[in-house]
């Protein structure tokens, strides 16, 4: 599985946009990029998944350049409740049973 690299932590303020970039230089052709969010004392929760260009849902946007060696998770107008650890993972799509390899994650602190 491709290794990912993310910043260890980021601070932001309520109402701002938070962008977290993940590097995955060895991403394979059939790998998708998936982001998870984890609050304290909870298991990770799926946020968004994409293969190329841009994906947007009600929670976030995911930007993937043409070479797919990196991706950026964008959280619009964050609130205090967005304080969490965000994990970037890469792996095949449609392969239930695919083992997930979690990197260190990015600890996002949203301040009032």
């Amino acid at each position, binding site marked *: 599985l491709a290794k990912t690299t993310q910043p260890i932590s980021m601070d932001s303020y309520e109402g701002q946009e938070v962008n977290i970039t993940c590097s995955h230089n060895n991403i394979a052709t059939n790998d*998708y990029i*998936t982001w*998870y969010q984890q609050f304290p*004392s*909870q*298991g*990770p*929760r*799926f946020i968004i*998944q994409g293969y190329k260009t841009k994906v947007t849902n009600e929670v976030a946007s995911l930007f993937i350049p043409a070479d797919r060696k990196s991706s950026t998770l964008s959280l619009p107008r964050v609130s205090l409740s967005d304080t969490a650890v965000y*994990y970037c993972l890469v*792996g*095949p*799509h*449609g*392969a*239930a*049973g*695919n*083992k*997930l*390899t*979690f*990197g*260190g*994650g990015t600890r996002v602190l949203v301040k009032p």
Partner: protein
Amino acid sequence: SAVISQKPSRDICQRGTSLTIQCQVDSQVTMMFWYRQQPGQSLTLIATANQGSEATYESGFVIDKFPISRPNLTFSTLTVSNMSPEDSSIYLCSVEVVSKNTEAFFGQGTRLTVV
């Protein structure tokens, strides 16, 4: 989607004893995964639980220490055996669902403290 229930949610155990963690899923899934998350750290995969066969363990984890059962497609248990304080962690059960996305669902975790 999938809803996962884990029991117990937390426990404090004496060293040398064993604890069995239960994981129940609300739908049938082929594979279930067990992770460990040490304090302040990321998740590390312990093993993949396959129904009808022995679990597949990751490097650094062995069956004698973390025996796993998978009696059916909705249930699995992980036992942490002969515990030491180094086993104090959060243990999480997970399944994957493939639809529009390939999405992993996690239980709330079991917070284990060994004293």
